[in-house]
């Protein structure tokens, strides 16, 4: 999606500093919408209330109409009527509309497609939070300051005219005492204006402080790794005291919903080396109280790591919590703990061959199918990988945690992180939560099961499988893309470096 990305997302001039998914607020979905297959990209609003830009590309022909509407997880009075998405000029196949997102939190975008096969809809979860603070640009500031000065001078002049002349009868003359009184009035109004400006400034700053206080921040966590286990805890007081209704009410805090399983796990924990080495683990800690969690820790090289913990709450709200952890050096070389979750996986970087290909431990070759053109921020990232088994091995890909593949995109400074599937950035659990069970035209879990076996945009070839992850790098920088899949009962992990350049202004 070259043009929609470059034209639509160029509007996002402001720097995104936080989102529910770290540095990556947009939602991507690639999958079924009833009988159709659609690629959906929802550009999340930077503030709420704000505008979400919804881009839809149906894979089928004969499409008559594409619609979309936003709703919130707890709306009890129905949904607003859908907006009709218009074809995007110069981007064949793409449809676009702009939707207002009025309330922060767990929202959804319901996309409807009408065509030769009838009507199909799909719910795309959208976690909308205020993620950044806009600053004034110089031309606008100059314009407003000029207007303020002119208006202030005008008001002072009006005050002077009011005292000097307005009370005179038509045949009256302005005398010296009246002129003096007019000047005094002008001085008084100037003082009042100055006080008003100072007061408005204080008010503005107070509003700004309040806004910044309410900017979304992921819940705080702490983590610790010893020789063979990882312990982490959600230390955020709004979580620890989430059942203390009085405490929350006193602080005007909303009550947080419990955790729900996504791909059968309460938490998906990613541990990524933070010091330039390429080492990675995808773990699934368990808990008894939803506050403290523990997992067996695999044998990874010692050093500093960044921890990312993906969770989903009952509202469908998803977020990634993060912290850092030091892994002791003696972790290297030891065997994996016997208690480790069979769905846990880990790996270290493999040398690149031909700049595009790596060979994994079992001989499987993974090739990033991209051309020579540079990766550009906010442009579809072309995360398409071919998986070629070793000679003589005919095993195909198997579902891993319900998906045919997983990818983790992390910028080297850990300011951008996202966990992807061929289905996109969305959480399957959130989608199920936000899809009305009464709406039989929608496709909840059943569709995802099919997706898990054969993704809509995946293609099988004689020499292996292809994985596609819909996504656009949200910011320039140096990234690592970790790709995971399962073959012959073994979870395999590989990594690819990616340099993302800024979009042309």
């Amino acid at each position, binding site marked *: 999606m070259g043009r929609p990305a470059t034209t639509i997302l160029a509007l996002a001039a*402001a720097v995104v500093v936080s989102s529910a998914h770290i540095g990556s607020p947009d939602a991507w979905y690639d999958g079924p919408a009833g009988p159709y297959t659609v690629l959906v990209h929802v550009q999340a609003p*930077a*503030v*709420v*209330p*704000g*505008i979400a830009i919804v881009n839809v590309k149906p894979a089928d022909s004969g499409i008559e109409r594409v619609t979309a*509407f*936003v*709703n*919130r997880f*707890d*709306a*009890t*009075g*129905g*949904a*607003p*009527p859908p907006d009709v998405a218009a074809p995007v000029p110069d981007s064949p196949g793409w449809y676009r509309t702009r939707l*207002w997102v*009025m*309330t922060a939190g767990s*929202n959804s975008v319901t996309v409807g497609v009408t065509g030769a096969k009838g009507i199909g809809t799909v719910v795309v979860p959208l976690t909308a939070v*205020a993620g950044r*603070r*806009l600053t*004034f640009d110089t031309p*606008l500031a100059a*314009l*407003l300051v000029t*207007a*303020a000065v*002119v*208006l202030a001078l*005008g*008001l002072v*002049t*009006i005050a002077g*005219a*009011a005292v*000097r*002349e*307005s*009370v*005179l*009868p*038509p*045949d009256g003359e302005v005398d010296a005492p009246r002129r003096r009184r007019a000047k005094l009035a002008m001085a008084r109004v100037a003082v009042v204006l100055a006080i008003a400006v100072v007061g*408005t400034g204080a*008010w*503005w700053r107070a*509003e*700004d402080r309040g*806004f910044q206080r309410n900017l979304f921040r992921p819940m705080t966590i702490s983590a610790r790794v010893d020789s063979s286990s990882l312990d982490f805890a959600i230390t955020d007081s709004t979580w620890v005291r989430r059942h203390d209704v009085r405490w929350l009410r006193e602080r005007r805090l909303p009550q947080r919903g419990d955790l729900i399983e996504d791909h059968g796990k309460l938490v998906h924990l990613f541990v990524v080396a933070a010091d330039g080495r390429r080492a990675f683990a995808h773990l699934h800690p368990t808990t008894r109280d939803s506050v403290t969690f523990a997992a067996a820790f695999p044998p990874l090289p010692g050093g500093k790591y960044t921890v990312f913990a993906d969770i989903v709450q009952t509202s469908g709200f998803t977020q990634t919590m993060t912290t850092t952890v030091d892994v002791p050096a003696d972790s290297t070389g030891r065997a994996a703990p016997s208690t480790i979750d069979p769905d846990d996986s880990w790996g270290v970087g493999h040398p690149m061959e031909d700049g595009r290909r790596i060979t994994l431990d079992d001989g499987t070759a993974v090739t990033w199918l991209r051309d020579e053109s540079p990766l550009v921020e906010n442009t579809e990232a072309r995360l398409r990988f071919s998986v070629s088994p070793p000679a003589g091995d005919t095993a195909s890909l198997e579902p891993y945690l319900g998906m045919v593949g997983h990818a983790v995109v992390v910028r080297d400074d850990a300011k951008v992180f996202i966990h992807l599937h061929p289905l996109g950035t969305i959480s399957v659990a959130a989608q199920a939560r936000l899809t009305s069970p009464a709406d039989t035209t929608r496709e909840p879990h059943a569709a995802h099961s099919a997706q898990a076996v054969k993704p809509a945009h995946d293609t099988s070839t004689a020499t292996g499988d292809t994985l596609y992850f819909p996504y656009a790098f949200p910011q320039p920088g140096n990234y690592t893309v970790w790709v995971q899949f399962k073959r012959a009962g073994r979870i395999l992990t590989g990594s690819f470096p990616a340099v993302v350049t800024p979009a042309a202004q």
Partner: protein
Amino acid sequence: MSTTLDGVSVRGDQSLAQPATRVGQRAEATWPLYAVLFSSVSIVVGLIWDISWHRSIGRDSFWSPPHLLEQLAAVVAGTSCGWVVLRTTFAGTASDHARTVRFWGFRGPLGAWVCIWGTLTMIASAPFDNWWHNAYGLDVKIISPPHMVLAWGMIAIQVGAMLMALARQNRAEPSEQRRLSMIYAMSAGILLTMHATVLMEYAAFPNDMHSARFYRVTAILIPLILVATARPSRLRWPATTTAAVYMAIVLVLMWTLQLFPATALLAPIYNPVTRMVPPPFPLLLVVPALAIDVLLRRVRGHDWSLSLALGIGFVAIMLATHWWWGEFMLSPAARTFLFNADLWDYNIKPGPWHYEFWGAETTVASFAKGLGIAVMTAVASSQLGLWIGHGMSRVQR
């Protein structure tokens, strides 16, 4: 339009009469006064309509009908007053100049300058408001700095309309004074409506009426507006007329808006509305206004003693009327077309809180303390109103 010498008829005579009229007498065009009165009422109708739009439909744009009405109001006020200024400055007679004040080399009535200032302020608020929406979210609050800049522009146009009517009233022959005083009272009523609308978040719903905050908030500017506009008026019941105009505007809009179908276009929808959600029933301001008229007429002596009586009387009567009025309006008896109780925004969650008083003090002492602050506020507001009213009573240009 003017029945004597409006802009059109003057132009008809200009080719022959211009040299004589330049130095002689020329009747004052009346249409600019009606134009700014139209702007003034359009602004407040547009504002109330816009709020109803946000409560019923939600989604709007720069081109929504209420916005267009407000923009039209600004254009009409700005262009008509601009025309008055240019005509007076470059083609005005000596008598025209004698009815105007000087501003940066130009001449125009004081009210016209205030209207022009208001128009420019409304225009200047647009980019600020747009930035605010991008920075902090779309229309999160009614009362925000850019909305207040816009409100000041709107209020200036309404004050300008009042000043234009007032200057004419103060110069008029006795036979013309009643008509001009009514126009002045109407323009003052529109200003009061504007102020009451801005207060909607704090003092409009019956649920607020058992809280001291309701009385504190209403005591800040309502006494000032009623007293200041009553003092220069030549009507027998000026404050009452002003309050009646306010109540009439809100009632007409309240009864009219809910006749139109509406569907919420934004989520979340908790209350699926089918018709426009109108403004709540107006505050019963004719009652304290009646007291203000009586006190202004009866109490003699220094302004401070008068303002003390006005302030105490205002809060006491507001309490006496709205305490019980709030209880009635929360009862099932008020849930009718006539009283418009129990009509809520599309995004308001239903619940028993709709029928409860909000923010009511838990002790008599805290309520009494709040009322005490309200009385002190109302006294100061009344005193300021007397002072401003005194100045306004002398405006002639």
